[in-house]
């Protein structure tokens, strides 16, 4: 069974703090994506990474793809209340294959 494990499952922090969310698998991904989902809405794509060791930045969000392409992390610097939401990683094990989602990390940023 191909599984994507995210940690932590829940995270509650104060505004201004930094945080990191992890996404791990025992298998190699051909590509990995991070999504953010707000209540009552569908997930929205944040970033796609395809190369081992790749780092992408989106304002205060930094995404890293592991060298072996089995894991990824999302780091948020100086979190804001607007960052609150469910963060999902999703991976493909081969090009054109189906997208498998992790369980998600529920982030709550308090003022």
């Amino acid at each position: 069974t191909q599984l994507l494990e995210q940690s932590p499952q829940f995270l509650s922090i104060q505004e201004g703090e930094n945080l990191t969310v992890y996404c791990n698998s025992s298998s190699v991904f051909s590509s990995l994506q991070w999504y953010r989902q707000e209540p009552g809405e569908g997930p929205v794509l944040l970033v796609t990474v395809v190369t081992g060791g790749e780092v992408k930045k989106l304002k205060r969000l930094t995404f890293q793809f592991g060298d072996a392409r089995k894991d990824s992390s999302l780091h948020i610097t100086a979190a804001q209340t607007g960052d609150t939401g469910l963060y999902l990683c999703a991976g493909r094990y081969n090009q054109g294959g189906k997208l498998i989602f992790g369980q998600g990390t529920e982030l709550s940023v308090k003022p």
Partner: protein
Amino acid sequence: DARVTQTPRHKVTEMGQEVTMRCQPILGHNTVFWYRQTMMQGLELLAYFRNRAPLDDSGMPKDRFSAEMPDATLATLKIQPSEPRDSAVYFCASGPDRVSGNTIYFGEGSWLTVV
């Protein structure tokens, strides 16, 4: 502003009733996905289509669920008969058929409650 459109947004039905959820993918997208989201299981892929042909429906309970694409502008997911354990949010997503780094766009979901 192109978007995936799902109907109904909310549905409450009694156990045993038939439920049909509809999805209009973004015009020009030729891959369509059905996902189910619950607190316990997260987002699970039920089925996906490419050029209206079903490619994988291994995640879907075959005895009561069926997914079809009657035409390029409509995808349907049907549950018959529905059971309380089917209560979940059902998402449709569509995407263009590019080889790598495919972006898929989700609808707002159909919130199903079976009582």
